[in-house]
């Protein structure tokens, strides 16, 4: 029953996408648009098919930066959010800085990162972490602060220490907040890695895109974009799965909601 419902729910999106692709193909065919202006979807899929192994090689490199950066972002977000929850002055001092950090255009910062940290994996991991860290930290801080004060009072009357309260009340309560942040972060992470590669790398999807763009192979460039989209979707789904695994108490209520 549930499966059927989810297919039904996805159907409009699939139909929409397919009609866009069909229309695109039709326009390219009838208007005879040259490939270097707008390649037809069929050409893009041929490019994707013919270069699938090359694309996978580049994807592997990008994925390492994505996972590394995301892991680092999760770690730092947890540490900082917990520290900010524990010491209010720290929150007052740090929170505005976090917001400011997100106003810095990554594209301008990235060349500096290369100069400081070289052209290896590290700067890409840091750029991904920088992009992903914000939605995670902000949602966690929000989650911690939204905990029912009565629950904390109750724990305190039972002489629970701060760590105990954090572990058994605040953390579980903040989990849904965290996972909605993670979904955003996971989707951005791929983009972050590509920006990092764009500015200096040996391989990766960003490099693939630049190379094909500079040799005027638009269909190959768009094939890489499809890979990036798929990768971002996978990251999003993984974040959802992690949430499902980590919050068993949420599963039932979700099922009930979906009927």
């Amino acid at each position, binding site marked *: 029953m549930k499966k059927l419902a989810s297919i039904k729910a996805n159907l409009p999106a699939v139909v929409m996408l397919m009609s866009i692709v069909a229309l695109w193909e039709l326009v390219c065919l009838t208007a005879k648009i040259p490939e*270097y202006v707008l390649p037809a979807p069929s050409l893009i899929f041929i490019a994707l098919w013919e270069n699938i192994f090359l694309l996978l090689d580049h994807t*592997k490199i990008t994925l390492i930066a994505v996972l590394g950066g995301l892991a680092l972002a999760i770690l730092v977000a947890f540490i900082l959010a917990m520290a900010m929850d524990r010491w209010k002055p720290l929150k007052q001092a740090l929170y505005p800085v976090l917001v400011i950090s997100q106003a810095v255009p990554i594209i301008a910062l990235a060349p500096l990162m*290369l100069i400081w940290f070289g052209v290896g994996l590290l700067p890409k991991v840091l750029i991904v972490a920088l992009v992903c860290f914000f939605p995670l930290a902000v949602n966690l801080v929000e989650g911690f602060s939204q905990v029912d004060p009565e629950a904390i009072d109750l724990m305190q009357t039972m002489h629970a220490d701060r760590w105990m309260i954090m572990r058994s009340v605040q953390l579980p309560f903040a989990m849904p907040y965290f996972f909605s942040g993670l979904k955003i972060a996971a989707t951005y992470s791929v983009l972050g890695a590509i920006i990092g590669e764009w500015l200096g*790398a040996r391989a990766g999807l960003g490099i693939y895109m630049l190379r094909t763009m500079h040799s005027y192979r638009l269909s190959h460039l768009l094939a890489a974009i499809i890979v990036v989209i798929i990768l971002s979707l996978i990251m999003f789904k993984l974040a959802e799965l992690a949430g499902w695994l980590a919050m068993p108490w949420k599963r039932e209520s979700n099922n009930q909601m979906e009927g």
Partner: protein
Amino acid sequence: MFKTKKMQFPACFVTIILLVVVLMPIGCATEEPEDPDEITVLLDWSPNTNYTGLYTAIEEGFYHDEDLKVEIIEAPGSVAQMVATGQAEFGISYQEEVTFARLSDIPVVSIAAIIQHNTSGFASLKERGIESPADFEGKSYGGWGSPVEEAMIKALMENHDADFDQVDIITTGEVDSLIVIEREADFAWIYYGWTGIEAELKEMELNFIELREEEPALDYYTPVLISSENLIAEDPDLIERFMRATTNGYLLAIDRPETAAQHLLAHAPELDEELVINSQEWLADKYQADADSWGLQDQETWEAYSRWLYEFDLIEEMPDVEKAFTNEFLK
């Protein structure tokens, strides 16, 4: 919600994070413990036929013979700074960048001219009738909108007593120049050896006004190989070995362009094969051209372009050109 007694959520997270942290070094630990000196060369653009000699030297084992392990990395936009700070030993740059970098106290030095003459110029569709810089009047130019570009157009037009103010400058940035001259503007600045060849393959008919034909001062070196003052002072032997192998790479590209093209394609299979092969054929006799040997740089070329930059107020002082380049590693 608070009734739940034992939460397992951190366990699953910690596992994920640990997995990633543990797996990451495996992904990166590809370098084998070996003797050769590891060096990095930074490219200022995606792989193309300007860099063929490097790939050829790798594939033919020329670097290996000099006990070097060369890694080539694409780093458009920050080559000079990274070479100057020692993040990489060598890089690809061009005379303009080296000049500006040195005037900003970024101590990079040009150690070889990869292509002896400037192969760039202004391209337009034949039907627009732009046959000389005088015809720029009333036309639009699509490019990065940098002061140097404007000065180049101005200089060329002044030589023909044409009025620069009648040119419409449009910023088109990264947009493919061939699309720019088709749709956005009348003329654009291209490197003939790549974009010009691409136009030939597409059977687009172009008018091409070569910079060096119009203004000798603009026959500057582009691209050049650079290193840092630091490395030159500390390890000239390394540079000599690198340059011996690189020279052999370019000499092979001159003699056997079709082989060299395959070496480039082996490292960058993303490129269009036809474009690479044709571009390689076109460039083969232009790497060395009329120089006594490949890579040699002439002080007059450095001085003429610096003077030109100075005359057009693009630099505030004349650089010490003798320090900007050296031929000492081209023995």
